[in-house]
C-alpha cells in the first residue's frame, strides 16, 4: 500500500494549521477525510444527473435513481448484504433509532410486526462500552415500553465481561459495538450472536468503527441488524446505513412515515412499500449516497485487508511510543489482540483538554473528552481521555508526532 500516493488523493491533508504547521490528522474515528474521488463523484452527480429519486419519469430522474440504487448495491456488496437489506439513513444514530422505534411501534402496528413488540418484563441488552448512539435510543425504548435495560460490564483491560450477565428468554435484542470507539477493543461478535440466538434474541451491531477499517461481512457475522455511517469511511456526512436481514425488515413497521415509503394511500389509512423503501420516507440524500458508493469503490480498490493491516501497524507504533512516555496510561487493550485503531489515553497530572490544546498547537488533531461514551469513562474513573484514531492515509511519522507532542504537553504543564 502506497500511503504517499493515497495521501495525494486527500487535498485537506496537505494544508497547514495554527500558524503554518503541517496538519497531523489523527481524528478519523470522529470523522474521516474524503478523497478527491468521493468529492468528484458527488460533483459529477450534481452537475449531470441530479433529480429526486424514485419519482418522476424524465431522464434525469431515471439517471438519479440508477445512481442511487447502484450505490446501494455496491455498498451492500461491500458489507456482505443484499441490496434490499441496505436502508439509507442520515447517519448510524438514525439507524439505531429506526430499529428502536420500530420495536415500540410494533406493539400497536399489528400483523407480523407483533414479533418485535417489547413490554414490561422484556429485556434489552447492551454493553457498558457503547457509544451514546447505541445506548440512549435503548434507554428511551425501555422508557416508552416498560422494558428493562441490562448491560454487559467491561473488564479493567477494556474487554466485555461475558460472564457479567446471563441472557434470558425475555431478552429481545442484544445491541453492541463491533469495535469500541474509545478503547479500540474488537468485541467477540460470534460469541455474542450465539448467546443471543440461544435465547431467541435478535442482535444489532454498531459497525461504525469496523466497516471503515476492516473487512466486514454482515451475512457471515450472523447479526440481524447493523448500522454504520458514511463520514467515517471516507464518504460524505448525511448518509448512513441500516442493515437488516431481509426477512426482518419485511416484517418491521416503519419509523418515519410520509412520501416515498407508501404502497397505497387513502384518507382512511395507508399501506407501506416493501423494504428498503418502507424505511426511506421523503426525498432521500442522493449525492451523499453516490459519494458513499465512491468511497466504497475507493476502499475496495485498496483492499480492506490492507487497510486493516496498515492501521494495526500504526496502533502498534502508538502503543509502543506512548508506553515510553512517563505518566501516560492507555485506556483499553495494550496489545493487538482483538483490537483496532483507536488509542485512548490519559496523562497523569494533565487534563485531556489541556493535552489536546498542546497537541493542537503543534498541528496534531485528536479528540478529547468522553467521545460520546460517558458511562465507559466513568467505568475507568476518568472524566475525559485523549483519543488518537487513524485511517488509510495516516502515517508512522504522524504517530511519532503524536508521541512527541504528548511529551511536550507534559513539559508545558511541568509534570515531566
Amino acid at each position, binding site marked *: 500500500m502506497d500511503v504517499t500516493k493515497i495521501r495525494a488523493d486527500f487535498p485537506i491533508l496537505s494544508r497547514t494549521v495554527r*500558524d503554518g504547521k503541517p496538519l497531523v490528522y489523527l481524528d478519523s474515528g470522529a470523522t474521516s477525510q474524503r478523497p478527491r474521488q468521493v468529492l468528484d463523484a458527488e460533483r459529477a452527480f450534481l452537475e449531470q444527473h441530479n433529480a429526486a429519486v424514485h419519482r418522476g419519469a424524465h431522464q434525469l430522474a431515471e439517471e438519479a435513481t440508477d445512481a442511487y440504487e447502484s450505490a446501494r448495491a455496491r455498498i451492500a456488496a461491500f458489507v456482505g448484504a443484499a441490496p434490499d437489506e441496505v436502508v439509507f439513513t442520515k447517519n448510524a444514530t438514525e439507524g439505531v433509532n429506526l430499529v428502536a422505534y420500530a420495536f415500540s411501534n410494533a406493539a400497536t402496528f399489528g400483523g407480523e410486526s407483533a414479533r418485535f413488540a417489547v413490554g414490561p418484563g422484556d429485556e434489552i441488552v447492551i454493553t457498558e462500552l457503547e457509544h451514546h448512539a447505541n445506548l440512549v435510543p435503548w434507554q428511551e425504548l425501555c422508557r416508552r415500553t416498560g422494558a428493562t435495560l441490562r448491560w454487559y460490564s467491561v473488564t479493567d483491560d477494556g474487554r466485555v465481561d461475558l460472564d457479567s450477565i446471563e441472557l434470558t428468554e425475555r431478552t429481545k435484542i442484544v445491541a453492541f459495538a463491533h469495535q469500541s470507539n474509545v478503547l479500540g477493543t474488537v468485541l467477540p461478535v460470534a460469541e455474542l450472536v450465539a448467546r443471543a440466538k440461544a435465547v431467541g434474541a435478535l442482535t444489532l451491531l454498531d459497525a461504525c468503527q469496523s466497516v471503515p477499517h476492516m473487512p466486514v461481512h454482515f451475512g457471515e457475522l450472523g447479526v440481524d441488524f447493523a448500522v454504520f455511517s458514511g463520514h467515517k469511511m471516507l464518504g460524505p456526512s448525511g448518509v448512513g446505513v441500516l442493515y437488516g436481514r431481509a426477512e426482518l425488515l419485511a416484517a418491521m413497521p416503519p419509523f418515519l412515515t410520509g412520501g416515498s415509503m407508501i404502497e397505497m394511500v387513502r384518507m382512511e389509512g395507508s399501506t407501506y412499500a416493501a423494504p428498503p423503501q418502507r424505511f426511506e420516507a421523503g426525498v432521500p440524500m442522493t449525492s451523499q449516497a453516490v459519494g458513499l458508493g465512491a468511497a466504497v469503490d475507493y476502499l475496495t480498490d485498496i483492499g480492506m485487508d490492507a487497510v486493516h493491516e496498515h492501521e494495526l501497524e500504526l496502533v502498534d507504533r502508538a502503543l509502543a511510543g506512548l508506553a515510553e512516555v512517563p505518566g501516560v496510561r492507555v485506556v483499553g487493550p495494550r496489545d493487538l489482540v482483538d483490537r483496532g485503531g483507536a488509542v485512548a489515553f490519559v496523562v497523569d497530572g494533565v487534563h485531556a483538554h489541556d493535552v489536546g*490544546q498542546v497537541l493542537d*498547537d503543534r498541528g496534531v488533531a485528536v479528540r478529547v473528552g468522553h467521545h460520546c461514551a460517558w458511562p465507559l469513562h466513568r467505568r475507568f474513573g476518568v*472524566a*475525559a481521555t485523549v483519543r488518537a484514531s487513524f485511517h488509510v492515509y495516516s502515517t508512522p511519522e504522524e504517530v511519532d508526532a503524536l508521541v512527541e507532542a504528548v511529551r511536550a504537553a507534559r513539559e*508545558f504543564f*511541568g509534570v515531566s
Partner: protein
Amino acid sequence: MQLEQMYQEIILDHYRTPHGAGLREPFDAESFQINPTCGDEITLRVRMEGDVVADVSYETLGCSISQASASVLTDLVVGKSKEDSLTVLGAFQAMAQGRGQVEPDEDVLGDGVAFAGVARYPARVKCALLGWMAFKDALVRSEEKP
C-alpha cells in the same frame, strides 16, 4: 507560539495553586454544573451576608482553564455586593464569548483579563465559563431560599 497566549502564567498559577478551593459550610446555595461535551464538572457554593458575597467554595473536576477560572472567580466576587459581582460576571462572559474582539477592562476583571486568550479558542470558552455559570445559578438559588 500561540499556546502561551491561552495559558498565560496567571492562569497556570491559579491552576497550580487554586484560591478558595474546597467545599465549605455554611452556605446558602449550591450549584452543580457540567460541560456535556467533555464531562467536566463543578460543584460551587455561595454564602451571602446580607447583600454581600461572603464566601464562594467549590470542587472541580476539569481542565486547567476551568479550574483557574473558578479560582479567579473567588478572588473577584468574594466581598462584593451581589450587583457588583454580577457586573464582573457580565464582563467576564462578554470577554470569554468575544472571540478575541472584546478588550477586557483590568479594573473590573483583575486576573480575569488573562482569559482573553481563551476567547480565541471557541471550544474552550465553556471551560472558562463553567464556574461562572455555577456562581450565577447559585446566586439565583440563594435568592429563592426562604
